[in-house]
Structure formats: C-alpha cells, structure tokens
C-alpha cells in the first residue's frame, strides 16, 4: 500500500476512534466497569485471604498440639478450634469453614510407637482454595512424620531419649521455617488473579462490541461513500480494522497499569506482558472483524459480542481458575484464546515465569490471532468489495 493510501487508512481509523471516543458510555463500560469488578472480586476472594480451617483435637497430646501449631504457622491458614467432629462437617457444608481436620484420640501415642494414624480432613471441593488447604495439611503431616522419624532414628542408633530427640528435630524444622520465611518474597497481591482476568475479559469485550462501529459504517453507507473517493479497498479495510486492535491494546494496557499502580499487582516479566497484551488484542480484533461482518445491525453486534466475550472469559478461566475445573472443561477452555492468555498471565504473575516459559501460551495465542485476523479480513473484504 502506498503512503497516500496509508494516510487515508489512518484518516478512517481516526474518524472511527473519534466517533467512539465521543460516547461517554464507552468510558463506563471499558474503564469504570472493569475496575469495579477487579476491586470487588479482588476484595472478596483475594488470594491473600487466609483459609479458615476448623480443627478438632480429640487426642490432647503433645504431638497433636504440635500438628495444630504447624498448621497455624502457615501464612495461608488460620486455625479455628472446634469441639466435635460433627460440628466441623456441618460448618464446612455451610461454607462457614473452608476445611476441617479431625485428629483422633491416640494419634500421638500411635505415631511415637512407630505406627500410623488416620487424620480425617473435610473439604468443599467446589471452593478454589480447597486444594491449597489440602496441600497445607499434607505438608504439616509430612513435616511431623519427618520429625518423629528423626527422633526414632536417634533413639535407635544413639540411644537419645525419644522426647529429647523429638525436641531437637522440632527445633530444626522451626529454624528452617524461619529461614524460609525470611527469604520469602512478598506474598501476591489479593488482586493477582482478578487483574489479569479482567485484562483478558475486557480485551475481548472491547474488541467484540467495537465491531458495532463496523456494522454502522456499512449500514450508513459510509464504507461505500469512502470507496467513491480515491481510496482503495485495502485502505478502507485497514482503517476499519485498526481501531479494533488499538482499542483492545489500549484497554488491556490501561487495566495492566491500573492493576500495577493502584492494586499493586506484580505482573512479572514486562516483555511477556506486552506480548500477551498484543497477541490477545489481535485475536480479539480478528473476532471483532468476523462479528462486524456477520452482524446485521450494531445492536446485534453488541447483543452477541458481550455474551460471547463473557462466555469465552468463563471457559478461559477469567471468572474462576481452570485449576479447579475437570480435565474436560479445561480442554474445552483451551479451544478459546482466553484460556491461553490466562495461562500466560498466571505463569508471569504467580510463578514469575520468563518469556520462554510461556512459549506455548504465546504460540497458541499467536495461532488464534493469525487465524481470526485472516478470517476477519477475508469476510471484511467480501463486504467491502463492490459487487
């Protein structure tokens, strides 16, 4: 395309952006709304909230007390003492507690004798944090198991009394825990999950609803009118498509900045974030182009675009983590670009992954971007070309 035609494409893109920019509802839908959602969801279900675990200690031994102490020591768990096993189960069922643990009578004695004991745990598997609670508990039991094993070894090989050996072993794990805690990085912001969720969700909301402008240009005869000037079909297509990409990128970057500056989300690798933002925006814009050419009216584009974006967001893990859904739903989710984008952000934010580590997510998003943009361009070409 010549510079002349590029200038015309830019004029079309600017006119389209200006016309959207004059609509105040856009600022609400694209800025205020996602920020409200981020704050609300982050505040209520934030990852920084402690998991409340009800503990019933039927043993009342030094070892059962040690197990409860180990559990309470965790950053992520807050222990509440409950007096009987039935009450714990009821509370978990009613969501008053996220998990419950029952330490049976004889727990300490059996472990010291070198035997096993059964600790009963109750979870609501529907809760995203149930998995964390289970992990914490098995961590505690493994630690205590190691302490007892060490004490028994000292008794068997050196004749160190069991109580003395146990005391030393416990002191060692306490020291290791303290060292671990000192070296530990700051725990993630409560908004660490909801911020990327909304970035992905609103990238698609903006690009898909933005397609209404497309339909309007066509229906008002503007596209045709543009082609009656010395403007090429390619320039018209570019001028109509570019604003969708720009809007999606700007939306995503704005929310990233809001998350970073206001909600203190540590996004991790900046290059990774940019790549995810741009590829998701391109895929979303391709989807918008498709919708814009298929919809018959601007209203129809909105009526399909919003639920489509929300649906893809749900399946892709923008409403809840795909870690808690079954493998079938996880697979279905990955039929949509939203899931790959979320995987990428989660790796950057929670695991501090580098660009290479999210290579597959980036590659999958790039494939979505190429396929959707090509399909969108093809359809757009069909509607723009004189017939």
């Amino acid at each position: 395309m010549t510079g002349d035609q590029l200038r015309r494409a830019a004029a079309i893109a600017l006119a389209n952006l200006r016309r959207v920019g004059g609509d105040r509802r856009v600022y609400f839908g694209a800025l205020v709304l996602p920020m409200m959602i981020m704050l609300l969801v982050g505040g209520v279900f934030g990852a920084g909230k402690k998991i409340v675990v009800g503990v019933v200690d039927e043993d009342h031994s030094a070892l059962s007390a040690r197990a409860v102490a180990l559990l309470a020591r965790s950053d992520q768990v807050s222990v509440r003492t409950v007096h009987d096993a039935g009450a714990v189960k009821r509370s978990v069922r009613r969501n008053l507690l996220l998990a419950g643990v029952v330490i049976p009578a004889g727990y300490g004695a059996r472990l010291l004798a070198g035997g096993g004991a059964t600790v009963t745990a109750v979870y609501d598997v529907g809760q995203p944090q149930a998995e964390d609670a289970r992990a914490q508990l098995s961590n505690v039991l493994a630690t205590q198991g190691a302490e007892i094993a060490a004490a028994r070894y000292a008794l068997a090989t050196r004749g160190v009394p069991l109580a003395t050996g146990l005391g030393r072993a416990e002191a060692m794990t306490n020291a290791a825990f303290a060292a671990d805690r000192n070296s530990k990085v700051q725990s993630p912001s409560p908004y660490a999950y909801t911020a990327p969720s909304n970035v992905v969700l609103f990238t698609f909301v903006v690009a898909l609803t933005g397609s209404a402008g497309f339909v309007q240009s066509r229906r008002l005869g503007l596209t045709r009118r543009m082609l009656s000037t010395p403007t090429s079909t390619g320039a018209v297509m570019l001028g109509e498509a570019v604003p969708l990409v720009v809007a999606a990128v700007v939306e995503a970057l704005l929310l990233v900045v809001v998350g970073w500056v206001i909600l203190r989300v540590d996004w991790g690798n900046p290059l990774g974030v940019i790549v995810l933002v741009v590829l998701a925006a391109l895929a979303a814009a391709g989807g918008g182009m498709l919708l814009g050419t298929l919809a018959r009216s601007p209203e129809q584009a909105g009526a399909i675009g919003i639920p489509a974006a929300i649906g893809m967001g749900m399946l892709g893990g923008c409403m809840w983590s795909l870690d808690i859904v079954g493998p079938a739903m996880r697979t279905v989710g990955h039929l949509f670009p939203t899931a790959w984008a979320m995987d990428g952000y989660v790796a950057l934010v929670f695991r501090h992954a580098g660009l290479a580590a999210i290579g597959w997510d980036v590659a999958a998003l790039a494939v979505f971007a190429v396929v959707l943009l090509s399909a969108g361009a093809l359809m757009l070409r069909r509607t723009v070309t004189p017939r």
Partner: protein
Amino acid sequence: MTDGPVLTCDGLLKRYGDRLAVDGVGFTVSEGECYGLLGPNGAGKTTTISMICGLVPCDAGSVWVAGRSINARSVAAKAAIGYVPQEVALYPELSAAENLRFFGRLYGLSGAELARRVGEVLETVGLTDRAGDRIEGYSGGMKRRANIAAGLLNHPRLLVLDEPTVGVDPQSRNSILETVESLRSAGLAVLYTTHYMEEAERLCDRIGIIDGGKLVAEGTRRQLVDLVGGRDRVRVAADGDLAAFAQRCRALPGVESAEDVGDAVELVAADGRRVLRPLIEAADACGVEMWSVEVAEPDLEAVFLSLTGRELRD
C-alpha cells in the same frame, strides 16, 4: 482540460440474479450541463450511478470520466467525481466540519488547503454557522446539504447526485436546487437522478427517462414532449369581443383550436411560445385588451405515461 463530454457511459449492463437492473444504458454529460435521470422506484437509477462511480462492477459497458476509464478497481480516477449518495453517508456522531475534514483527507487534501476547502463547501451549502454541530442533531434538509458538501470537496468535474431532495422540506429543497443550478453554471457536469419531474424540468438541460433498467427516451424537455406529440395550452385573459378574437386565433398558423371561455380564450398549439407574437397582433386587430398570457407545456409526467404506460410515481 479535455474536449468532449466529461462523462461518457455506454452499454451499461448490470444483472442481479436473473433480474436485469440496468440494461444497456448509455449517455453523455458535458461541462456546464445538467443531465437528469428520471425514473420511478427500482428503475435502475442508483445502479447506473454506482457503475459510473465505480462502486459496482459492470457486467458490460464502459464509463469514461474526464478522459479516464472508471471501473470497480479504479482508485485515482475517482478523484474527478463528486458522489452524493441517496442516503446521508456521514458520521452522525461527528460535526459537519469533522465529517468534511475526514472526506477531504480521503480526497487527498490536507493542511491549509483542506481547511479552506471545508470552509468553502460549507458556505456553498449554507451550513457555515452550524458547522460545529453534530450531524445527528441536524434536520433532514441540513443533513442532505452536508451530504452534498462532502461531494464538492474535491472540485469534481462530474457531480453525481442521487435523489438529493428526498424527504426534505420545500425550503431546503429549493436551496438544494439553487445550489445545483449555481454549480452547473460554474461549469460542473451534473448527473442528477430524481423521480420528481418538477425537479428534472427545472434543473436539467437534458433528461433521460429510465424504466425497468432501460433508457426509454432522452433529450431536452422540448424534444421529449415533441416525441410523444405533446401540445401546449395557451390561456389569454382579456377584455373585449372574445368570440371574434377566438375566431381570429383559429386562423393563425400552428394553432389547432381556440375557444372563448368567458373571461379568457384558451388555445391549443404545437408550440405555445411561437404563437405569442401573432396572438398579440390578433388581439390588437380585434380591439381586445389582454391581461395575461399563460403557456402550459405538457409535462414530463404525461411524457412518461405515454412512453411507459405507467405513472411516474406509484
């Protein structure tokens, strides 16, 4: 710049499925000439215009504007055309000035030249004082005027207007017609489609009557009327011996009949204007004092009816 007509189209043909929307239409429009394409709804006016503006590919035929061939793949050659579509094609959320600046850029204008040209066309259509208002707040007539302004930005050699007065109040309509008249006087070649015969009669130097995709007749108004053997009616209001005056009129060459109707004499003549001078002489000779003379030529409605067997408007 170039000799000969600004627009030459020939043998234009467009098929939609098995329907022939346009069937062998051809005509020319010269500098300073207004050519009217007159036809009922669905006659093929818009389709013809779309082919001329390179917005629809022709199935057959050719279009030349200002010496360059136009087809659906043309880009640069469209610079010579100013197209005013049937529907108002402007961004409703933007002001008239913003819309005009936008289209000006599409015509390759920029900077001071763009600003000057936007000012000029706003002046031409009388919207200077409303230039900053959004199009969506405009009345129907103002929207249409802004729509026309956009088609003038590029100093076109050919101005194509597709039913520019539909749904417009009489005042705006008159202002639009005046604008077109002055543009024609300024040397533009104007192609004007309408299904209002009064507009075609007032504006157009030549008229093509289109029906069912075919150009059924073409010529000046007079030629079209003659084509169907139309006769003028002349009414002379006068005082005196009107019976004698009527008798004398009947003897004049070109007069087919003359009748005394009490306060006037009504004549039927092949060409009303030709008999005016002999009429005055006849009145003098009879001692009749004339108050007024009205010449009513047969209208295009009648021409259309006789050519197609149908009324122009349904």
